[in-house]
C-alpha cells in the first residue's frame, strides 16, 4: 500500500527530503508500484512540531523528521544528535549494528510508534556568526539560535541560546536579534540565504557530529503490514541511509568555496574553545543520563560502542600526507 508520510521539512528541500523520495522510489521499484510513500511537506496538513503526536494517536499513519526534534517529549530521542558524539558512520553503525535503534525504539513503544532510521546527516557547520569566537568567553551574552542539547551547553557559558523556527531565523539574524545561528548543511543553508547576512561561518559542528532522521510509523499500521512489506521497508530504509552517507560529504566543499567567494570568512573554532565545550557537554549529558534512565542507557551504549572500535581505528590510521 501507499503510506501517507508527513514530513517536518518542506517537500522539496535539498538532500534532507531527497532521502525520503529515494525511499519511496526504492519501495515502488521493489514492489512493482504496490508499496510506496506519499510525501507531504511541513505544514501542508500537519504542523511540523505535531507530527509525533499525530502518528502516536493514529490521526496520520506515518511521519518523517529529525529524531532529536522530539527530545522534549521522548528524552531518549536526544541521542539523535549528541554533541561530541558519534560521527555519521559510527552513528549508523551504532544504530543498526550496536543495538542503538532498539534502545531508541523502547522510548517510542509507549507512544505506539515504530521507528526506522533511514537518514544520517553529516556533521553540520558550527554555525553562521556575526561575532568572532576567539575564546570561550566570547559565548557569554551571545544570542544564538540552537535547539536541543547544544543549546543547554551554550547556556552553561552565559550564552542565550534560543530556538527559532526556520522561517524566523533569517529576519532575526539580519536585524541582529540573534548574533549567530546553526541550521543545516551548507547546500541547505544556501537556500535560506544565511550567507547574505552573516560574516563568519564556523566549523566544526561540535553540537551534532552526526544526526539521524527517522521514519515514524504508527505501530498498528506497521503490525498490519505483511512480513514481506515490512522487509521491503527495512531494506529501502537502508538504501536511503547508505545514500545519505555517500552523498553529503563531497557536495559541501564546492558550496563552501562559493560562500567564500561571496565574502564569507570560513573559520574553525579554536581548539581550547572546543575543549571547554566538550567538558561542558559531558557535564550536561551526564546530568541528563541521571535524569532519564533510558537516555542514560542509550548514551552509555553509544559511548561504549564508539570506544570499542578505538583500538582498531588507531591501528589502521595511516599517516597524513
Amino acid at each position, binding site marked *: 500500500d501507499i503510506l501517507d508520510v508527513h514530513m517536518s521539512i518542506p*517537500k*522539496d528541500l*535539498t538532500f534532507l527530503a531527497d532521502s525520503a523520495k529515494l525511499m519511496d522510489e526504492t519501495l515502488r521499484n521493489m514492489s512493482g508500484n504496490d508499496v510506496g510513500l506519499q510525501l507531504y511537506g511541513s505544514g501542508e496538513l500537519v504542523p511540523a*512540531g*505535531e507530527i509525533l503526536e499525530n502518528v502516536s494517536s*493514529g*490521526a496520520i499513519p506515518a511521519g518523517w523528521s529529525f529524531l532529536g526534534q522530539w527530545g522534549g517529549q521522548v528524552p531518549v530521542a536526544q541521542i539523535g544528535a549528541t554533541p561530541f558524539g558519534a560521527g555519521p558512520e559510527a552513528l549508523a553503525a551504532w544504530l543498526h549494528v550496536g543495538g542503538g535503534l532498539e534502545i531508541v525504539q523502547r522510548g517510542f513503544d509507549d507512544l505506539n510508534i515504530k521507528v526506522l532510521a533511514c537518514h544520517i546527516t553529516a556533521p553540520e557547520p558550527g554555525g553562521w556568526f556575526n561575532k568572532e569566537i576567539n575564546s570561550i568567553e566570547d559565548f557569554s551574552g551571545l544570542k544564538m539560535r540552537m535547539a536541543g542539547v547544544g543549546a543547554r551547553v551554550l547556556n552553561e557559558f552565559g550564552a542565550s541560546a534560543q530556538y527559532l523556527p526556520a522561517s524566523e531565523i533569517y*529576519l532575526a539574524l*539580519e536585524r541582529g536579534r540573534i548574533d549567530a545561528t546553526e541550521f543545516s548543511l551548507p547546500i541547505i543553508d544556501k537556500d535560506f540565504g544565511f550567507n*547574505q547576512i552573516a560574516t563568519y561561518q564556523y566549523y566544526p559542528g561540535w553540537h551534532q557530529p552526526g544526526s539521524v532522521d527517522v521514519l515514524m510509523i504508527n505501530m498498528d499500521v506497521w503490525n498490519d503490514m505483511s512480513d514481506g512489506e515490512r522487509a521491503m521497508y527495512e531494506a529501502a530504509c537502508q538504501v536511503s541511509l547508505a545514500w545519505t552517507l555517500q552523498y553529503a560529504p563531497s557536495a559541501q566543499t564546492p558550496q563552501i568555496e562559493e560562500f567564500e567567494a561571496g565574502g564569507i570568512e570560513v573559520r574553525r573554532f579554536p581548539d581550547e574553545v572546543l575543549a571547554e565545550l566538550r567538558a561542558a557537554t559531558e557535564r550536561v549529558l551526564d546530568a541528563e543520563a541521571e535524569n532519564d534512565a533510558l537516555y542514560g542507557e542509550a548514551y552509555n551504549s553509544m559511548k561504549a560502542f564508539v570506544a570499542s572500535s578505538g583500538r582498531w581505528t588507531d591501528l589502521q590510521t595511516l599517516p597524513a600526507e
Partner: protein
Amino acid sequence: MIEHIIPLTMVVCLLLGIFSGYPVAFVLGGIGILFAFIGGLPFAFLKIGVSRIYAGVIENWLLLAVPLFVFMGAMLDKSGLAQNLLYSLERALGRKRGGLAISVALLGIVMAASTGIVGASVVMLSTLALPIMLREKYKPELAVGTIAASGTLGILIPPSIMLVLVGDILQISVGELFVGAMVPGLLLGGLYIAYIVFVALTKPNDAPVSTHIPAEGSLALALLRDLFAPLALILTVLGSIATGTATPTEAAGLGAICAMILAAINRKLTFQTMSTCVRETGNTTAMILGVLVGATIFGMVFKGLKGDEMIENAILFFDLGAYGTLGILLLLIFIMGFFLEWVEISFIVLPLFAPIVAGLDFGLGISREQQLLWFAMLVAVNLQTSFLTPPFGYSLFYVKGVAPPEISIRIIYRGIIPFVGLQLFGLALLIIWPNLVLWAPNAVFGN
C-alpha cells in the same frame, strides 16, 4: 470531474454559510467538520485539527503581535493621541482636500514597514482613523477602502511573514524577496494616494478638508508638539527592529508600552482607559484569530478531500503558452483568495505551481532563479489582493469587526472595489515590467 464533486460542494456551502450572516469563523470551521463526515474522512483525521489550532495559532509566536498592536491602537485612540497624529500629518500636507485619507495611507505604509500582520494593522488603522474620517464627513466607502487597502500593505512591504513563507516554500532567498518587494509595495501605496488625489479633485464632497483641526498657533510649534507622540512611537517600533533590539513581535509590545507612556503624559491613563483598552484587545483578538482558527480547520479538510488535486487538474486542463499559463495560475490564486486563507493557498498551490513556472519561457532572458523571484512577487501581490476581494476578504472582515454598526459590509464591499482595481493595475505593471521587481535585488545583491 466527478471526484471533485465534494470539494466543490464544500466551497459552495461555505459561500452559502457566509452569506447567511452566521459568524465567518464558525462557518469555516463547521463546514470543515461537516464535510469531513460527508467526505468519509476517518474520525481520527480530525485530531489533526486540534494540532493545527495549537501549533498554527497558539504556538505561532508571530501572532502574538496581534493583541499587542491592537492594544497599542486602542490606547492611542482612547488617549486622543491618534487624532492629533492624523491631524498633524494632514496639516503637514497643507490641509488639502483628501489630506486625511492620504495621511491614513502614509500611516499604513509606515505600519507596513513595522509589522507583517495584516489583522493587526487593519484593526489599528480602523480604530484610529475611521471614526475621525467619518466625523470629517468623508464618504464612508472611501474611508473604509483606504483603511483596508493601506492596512493590508503590511503583508507585502518587508518585514513580511508572507514573503518568508513564500521564500521557504519556493526555496528563494528571503533577502532577495524582501528587497524585491520594496518597489512593488511602494508602487501600490503610490497608486492608492494617486487615487485619493483623483477622488478629491473630481468629487470634492467625498474627500473634504478637515474642519476640526485646531487652526490657531504656529504650525511649526503645533507640528512639533503633535508629531512628538507619533514620532516617539514610530521610532520605538521601527527603531527597535532596525537596531536589532527587538523582533517585530517584541517591537509591537514596545509600541504598546510606549503608547501607555504617551497616554500617561497626556493625563489619559486612567483605570477606566486601561479597562476599556484591555476589553477591546480581548474581543478584537478573539475576532481576528477566531477566523484563523476556523480557516485552519476548513483548509485541512479541503486538502484531505483532495481539493488541491481539483486545483491542480484545473491548471493542467488549460495549455496556453507562457503568459497564458501565468495568467491562469494568477487567476486561480485570485479565485482561491475568495474562500481560502493565504497560508493555505501558499502551502497548497505554490509547490504545485513552482515547477510549472520555472519551466515557462517568457523570452525575457533572465535566469530560472530570477524568473521564480519575479513569480513569487506576482503571487505575493495577488495574495495581498485576496485579502481585499469580496466576499471573502479577511481585511474586510477585520474592518467590519471594529467599525461602527452603520458601516455595513455592503459599504465595505463598495469601498474596496476601486482599490482592488488598483491592485490589479499594479499587478499588470509588474507582469509587463519584471524589472520593477528584479531591479532592486540585482542592485543590492549584484546578480
